[in-house]
């Protein structure tokens, strides 16, 4: 048992830090902290990583990836979060790509994978539907084969950054008579195909990050089918195991906790820094204690993964605990901001040359708190994760 990184891992971490130091400018860091990244910022970030060969971290070398192991990926994620770097947009890189590598045709791999790396394609995810959230397999979007095409009709929702995407990978129902999971196929669709409409969904913090995507008689060439017809559920589940990588979000929590501490040192409560207030300090300490343990749980699971063991219920456990901790930290940040959590900052109010309202750290805290309620909802809600844990450990057990 050794809790420390080995020399090689430490050297890698230094390399990552040097890269982040150079690439994450104060201006970019500010945009990340305030949630004001533009499409161009995200594309620039991808390009910078790609130039370094670090964009496709989990891809094998043969496809142009970095082929990092689980520990390296973890180090990067943690350092990037601590540096307030933009997140890598995962839809093409870490969701679709593994599916194409395992189940896609040679032609699909050769065509799509380089375009993901170069940024030519921006993918979004067509999974959830208004009636199919936690119960994803009940999805209804229909694809009917007509000659060389599928005709797709239906609606997807919660499509993250779909407004920027030129491609969408979709789960569609190709056999309505089969058992739910057995009539689903996995299709790749051009967003500029006639019959597709993207409608924005504005979230409770005023942001536009998700969309509805409507399909009306959308013609999709049959060569855009991944793998076999009606086997899409298998691919979908495979993809979701990749969606759950970095599910613990340890780096985000550490960065968030540091930010709360900075705030609590600056905020004054009855003439003393808030961080010295026993009630606030106790809240802070409790979440830090939880995070310290979870960070080690996370590393234990990463070590197992690096040794080739597939994670089981552990990723569900990390999803639940990780999101609870992140949300608790968001709650603390909001509390620390005090009355200055109330102003609703926007670029309209805080123009480029205007000072922020109140302390600069306070503005985004409430919006982040509300926005991150999504963490326990998306990617398999925490209720679904608990179902998975209980089902594995208790069996059918009724």
């Amino acid at each position: 048992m050794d809790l420390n990184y080995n020399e090689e891992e430490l050297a890698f971490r230094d390399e990552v830090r040097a890269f982040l130091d150079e690439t994450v400018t104060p201006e970019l860091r500010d945009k990340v902290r305030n949630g004001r990244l533009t499409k161009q910022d995200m594309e620039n970030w991808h390009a910078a990583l790609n130039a370094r060969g670090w964009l496709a971290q989990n891809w094998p070398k043969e496809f142009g990836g970095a082929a990092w192991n689980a520990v390296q990926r973890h180090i990067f994620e943690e350092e990037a979060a601590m540096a307030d770097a933009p997140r890598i947009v995962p839809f093409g890189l870490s969701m679709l790509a593994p599916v194409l590598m395992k189940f896609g045709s040679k032609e699909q791999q050769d065509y799509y994978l380089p375009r993901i790396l170069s940024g030519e394609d921006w993918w979004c995810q067509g999974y959830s539907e208004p009636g199919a959230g936690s119960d994803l397999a009940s999805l209804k979007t229909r694809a009917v084969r007509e000659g060389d095409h599928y005709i797709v009709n239906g609606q997807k929702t919660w499509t993250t950054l779909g407004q920027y995407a030129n491609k969408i990978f979709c789960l569609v129902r190709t056999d309505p008579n089969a058992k739910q999971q057995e009539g689903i196929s996995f299709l790749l669709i051009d967003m500029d195909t006639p019959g597709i409409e993207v409608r924005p969904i504005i979230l409770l913090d005023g942001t536009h990050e998700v969309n509805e995507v409507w399909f009306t008689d959308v013609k999709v060439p049959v060569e855009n089918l991944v793998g076999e017809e009606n086997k899409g559920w298998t691919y979908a589940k495979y993809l979701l195991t990749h969606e759950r990588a970095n599910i613990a979000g340890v780096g985000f929590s550490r960065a968030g906790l540091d930010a709360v501490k900075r705030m609590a040192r600056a905020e004054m409560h009855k003439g003393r820094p808030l961080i010295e207030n026993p009630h606030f300090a106790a809240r802070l300490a409790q979440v830090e204690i939880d995070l310290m343990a979870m960070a080690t749980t996370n590393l234990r699971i990463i070590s197992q993964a690096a040794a080739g063991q597939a994670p089981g219920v552990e990723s569900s456990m990390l999803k639940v605990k990780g999101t609870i901790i992140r949300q608790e930290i968001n709650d603390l940040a909001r509390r620390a901001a005090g009355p200055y959590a109330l102003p609703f900052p926007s670029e309209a109010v805080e123009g480029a040359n205007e000072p922020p309202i109140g302390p600069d750290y306070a503005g985004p805290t409430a919006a982040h708190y509300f926005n991150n309620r999504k963490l326990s909802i998306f990617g398999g809600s925490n209720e679904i994760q608990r179902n998975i844990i209980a089902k594995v450990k208790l069996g059918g057990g009724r």
Partner: protein
Amino acid sequence: MNFELTEERRMLQDTLRRFLSDRYDTATRNRILESDEGFSPEIWEGLAELGVIGALFAEDQGGFGGAGFDISVVFEELGRAGVVEPMLDTAILGGGLLAALGDEAQRALVEEVIGGGLHLALAHYEPGSRYDLSRVRATATPEGGEIVLNGAKAVVVNAEAAGQLIVSARESGAADDPGGISLFLVPAGANGLSLRGYPMISGGRAAEVTLDEVRLPASARLGTAGEGFEPLRTAIARANVALAAETLGAMETATELTREYLLTRQQFGRPIGTFQALQHRFADMLIELEQARSAVINAAGNLEKSPDFRDMQISSARNLIGRVGRLIAEESIQMHGGIAMTQEYELAHFAKRITMADHRFGDTDWHLERFLELSAA
């Protein structure tokens, strides 16, 4: 012992509930939220005509209520409907201080408030003061026959709409001394008064207020020089009853929306409300909601008691409602899932209202601390 509302209050409750259910749906609220004013003058006028503002003042102040339970009845309904109009700031804080402290000329303004013709705002808290009631660094200096105000005030709710601002400023004492604080009436547009307005995340508008050599006649003083702290404390106590009741109302609506959703949303071939994991959590929400209801009754029913006992009850209520509010807002969102994350769906506004109530007049921890101080005394 009697936990029934009086006939008058029940009528007020019914009338107000009907008025709001006819006029205040999500689409209306969202339109109001996006407007430049941040509230609807028509709704305000309607509320005044119904006598809702008058119900918040005592008879000798020109109203027909003004007690703790009048406040709680009105604000519970405003909270249930998610009303964003600035009743708390204009009537409870501003109107309450004018009615309690005003000379004859100043009290005449109360009539305008009750009629719906005048908005008010209390400019008291300052950048860096968080929720500390006695920390006032703005200064009031006599000069000739005039008074000159200097300083900055933080997150002054309803400042832009207010015809008059009630401004606290220090005439003597150290920065956190309860003694030496005075109150002044500053008319909108006064020389040296500047506002930087912005919307708030839970609705309504506020402003950062700067006082730069604001010159006032001696008649602008509200109440006795240097003795503003106790009246402020009373006004904030009343505001806390209002805020607690408003939050209770918002929690009722959030809980009801969640109940309806659990009964109608189908996943895995059945309503999600048939899953025991959710049933138990919903039951906990209901249990805590009743705790919150009782806490509001405790606070409202003790509003006229001695200041320390009153404030202990109030801090008890605000601490409890802070905890219950977080539970109900978060559980309501979680049990709804994604739909609750959207601006368009009704719950979003209620969740924000419930949560952000914890950022006015002290948060859950602040009230816990004050409860400890006052209950040890």
